[in-house]
């Protein structure tokens, strides 16, 4: 019995360079046809889709390709009576889309367009006694929701002044999800997963509580996500994926260990996952592209210093200039 490393190999016809223009056209035309099948089938996550597309275009210096007024009025139409945001009008609200709405409006510097206080009340109403957060009124608990809450409050400027949540308990809950490998899972007892690591490390960074993390141990687990192809997986013995590459890379950046992986080969993996015909980036070379992986591919390249891209903030996955404009200081470890 022997473990075979799960990985991908590149075919010969992979794209060579970063195809900036094709990505701009892929994202800016995505959703233009309201009868497109893919587009209609993803209505249940539309608001996050807008955040992915808008952030990608901003990083690519082409934010003006989108209809700002239309997007803002769509975001406004997603705020429900509870104060939270639904992915599309008529759907139920959740903390996931509440963060997406706030991210979009912060990038446009248009937070005033919505009832911010009502959104804040909604977020605060989802905190439990133990510090954890539910995703919505139905009670599912997950550290992803802790990140959504903390990031949203930081973006609307209510984390450090007049904070409506118990941050001490919030931190305690996140720390209770830490595992033997230094990583984090969905809930206490859950296995470490890179997406969850991103959320927990991000929340602790925003809260300036990174000292709870064993950076050497977690950094080791994270850098072991890199496979021979250069791509990173989300858990041991899994295939590489562009979105996991972002969760891992950004977590490494926050704990000051980005140099523990081979950045050149990760760049090659992302470049190889582009589709030169349609534009956009897929989860791995040869697969179908989508806006989600396109953002995380572009964000990864930005974090690794790709030229002609705006700088990304590793915690919020938003352009750094937006975070600077909001005067948010996240904690970043240096050794």
């Amino acid at each position, binding site marked *: *019995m*022997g*473990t075979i*490393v799960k990985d991908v190999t590149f075919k010969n016809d992979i794209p060579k360079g970063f195809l900036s223009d094709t990505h701009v056209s892929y994202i800016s035309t995505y959703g233009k046809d309201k*009868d497109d*099948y893919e587009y*209609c*089938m993803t*209505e*249940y996550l539309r608001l996050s889709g807008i955040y992915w597309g808008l952030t990608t275009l901003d990083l690519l210096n082409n934010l003006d390709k989108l209809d700002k007024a239309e997007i803002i009025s769509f975001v406004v139409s997603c705020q429900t009576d509870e104060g939270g945001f*639904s992915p599309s009008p*008529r*759907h*139920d609200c959740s903390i996931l889309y509440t963060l997406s709405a706030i991210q979009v409006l912060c990038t446009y510097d248009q937070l005033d367009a919505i009832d911010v206080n009502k959104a804040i009340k909604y977020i605060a109403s989802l905190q439990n006694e133990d510090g954890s957060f539910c995703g*919505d009124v*139905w*009670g*599912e608990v*997950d550290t992803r929701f802790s990140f959504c809450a903390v990031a949203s409050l930081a973006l609307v400027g209510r984390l450090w002044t007049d904070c409506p949540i118990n941050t001490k308990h919030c931190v305690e809950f996140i720390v209770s999800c830490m*595992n*033997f*490998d230094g990583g984090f*899972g*969905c809930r206490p*007892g*859950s*296995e*470490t997963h890179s997406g969850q690591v991103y959320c927990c490390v991000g929340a602790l960074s925003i809260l*300036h*509580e990174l*000292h709870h993390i*064993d950076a*050497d*141990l977690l*950094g*080791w*687990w994270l*850098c*072991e996500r*890199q496979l021979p192809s250069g791509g990173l997986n989300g858990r*041991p*013995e*899994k*295939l590489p*994926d562009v979105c996991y590459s972002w969760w891992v890379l950004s977590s490494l950046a926050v704990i000051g*260990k980005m140099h*523990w992986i*081979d950045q050149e*080969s990760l760049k090659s993996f992302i470049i190889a996952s582009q*589709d030169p015909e349609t534009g956009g980036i*897929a*989860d*791995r070379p*040869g*697969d*179908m592209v*989508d806006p989600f*992986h396109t953002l995380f591919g572009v964000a990864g390249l930005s974090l690794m210093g790709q030229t002609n891209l705006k700088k990304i903030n590793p915690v919020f996955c938003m352009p750094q200039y937006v975070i600077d404009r909001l005067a948010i200081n996240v904690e970043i470890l*240096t*050794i």
Partner: protein
Amino acid sequence: MHGRVKVKTSAEQQEEKRKERQSKLKIFRKVINAFFNKVSKEEYDNDGLEITKQILASNSDYSSMWNYRKKCFANSEKPKSEIEAMLNSELTFIESCLRNNPKSYGCWHQRCFVLLKLKTPDWKRELQLCNLFLQFDDRNFHCWDYRRFVCSHSNHPLKDEIDYTNKLIESNFSNYSSWHYRSKLLPEVYPDSSVGNKIAERKLLEELELVQNAFFTDPNDQSAWFYHKWLLGRGHPMQSILSLHVSRFPSTLTCTLRKPIKEEDCQQALVRVNGTVISGKWKPHSSACYMNTWTFTPHEKIGTGLISVSCQVDGVETQITMEIDDNEALCCAKNTIETFCESSSDAKLLVLEEELNSCRELNELEPDNKWVVLTLVFLMKAIDPIRFFSEMKELLKSLCIIDSKRSCYYQDLHSKYAVENWIICADLQSRKADLRNKGITRLCHVEFLVGLTHLDLSHNKLKALGSTFLVFPWLQELKADDNEITEIDGLKALPSLITLSLNSNALSSVELLSCLSTCPNLQHVSLKSNPVSSCEKDYFKNFPFRLTL
């Protein structure tokens, strides 16, 4: 969209697919509209349950529809037995959805919701469902989480869960999820009475044997190696006071802790002079929320005699006592090998030595297996990091070649061990540190070095002097010649720094030096053999210190 391979298709096929999708979309829209109609009329009935089934069966991420169904069960005014039957049929429906999409957050949460609503939930059946889904995919973390949910609600014996992981591991050692689960179960089932160890020693030794079998069977599977590292102990340091500095004119006390603390914890710390508590105020060394170093300004002058600081953080009491008969004194806690790794009993040491020998054999058989080499390093570190240091250094060097993608990790790991060994052997109270020629790429554990007046880091591989260096209140002389330094943004506002030597580095621009102007006592900076040395002398004229270029 994960794992959807792009297939090249002809124009004809594309047209066919488009038509098929258009008709699918038509039906989809009709159902969706019917659904939202129900919602807007607040009709939570069987009709609505049927409508939502049509979408959820193939698209289980449609959370508004799961919510609608939850409302149907929660708001129903039907007799209890009927609701119970509805909930049971919901379980059958969820199971069919899970077969289509075993990783749907919505499905698994719906199942938790239903189970908690049922009057008489059949937890045994749920555990069997978990067994089934873990048979399909033993890494499905949703199912593992659901399993833990079932166990906690049914008071299922955790020992049986250990047996379950035994079974999975026996059939396939490469099962990270099972090893992870063991790391949670063992400390619960076999707790250790003494501090430090997480598992009772007898069990720990058994576990070491199990995991050794695993990595001997399949040395390329990383799961067992990660787990082994955890068993060796992760050097989770206990809170303690590392050093205390007392100055009488002006009267201040500076205390450094192993782990950073918040102001509210620090204000609880008590300062005693000759046994009498004195009042004053603690201030952090910088503006961060958590700090290792805190300065105490007493309301009255400090005299000579015995001075002690004690504080309690997170239930741990720590204390340091020193005698002062001079104007200034520094007291550092004694460091030993145990400062940086957990102490081992004789029985454990024996097991670790045996493991070391087995791993050496495995290394001979498979010299390029990086996991074996790294585990040799970890074992040596756990047994005796000083005795084995030169061998550890060689092994880490070889890892940089075998596993070049992670060479910086191995170099940083070596740096950490080198600094730890130096701290263990050093006389920190001499306040001078000679860390030349250590091959280090980073300076760790600076909290141990806070009291230094002289620090020499020359002839290493440091790339930056970052914010780590902000911690030195008494540092007068810093040398870091012959490194690879490109940034020095950590050398800011160092209050005592007089001399700085950074010859033979890679500093490239004058702007990089601007932070040095914030060091109030800096008199001399030497920057020979840096790219910046060749700049026009004019650029440097505004610096308030003497420069040697």
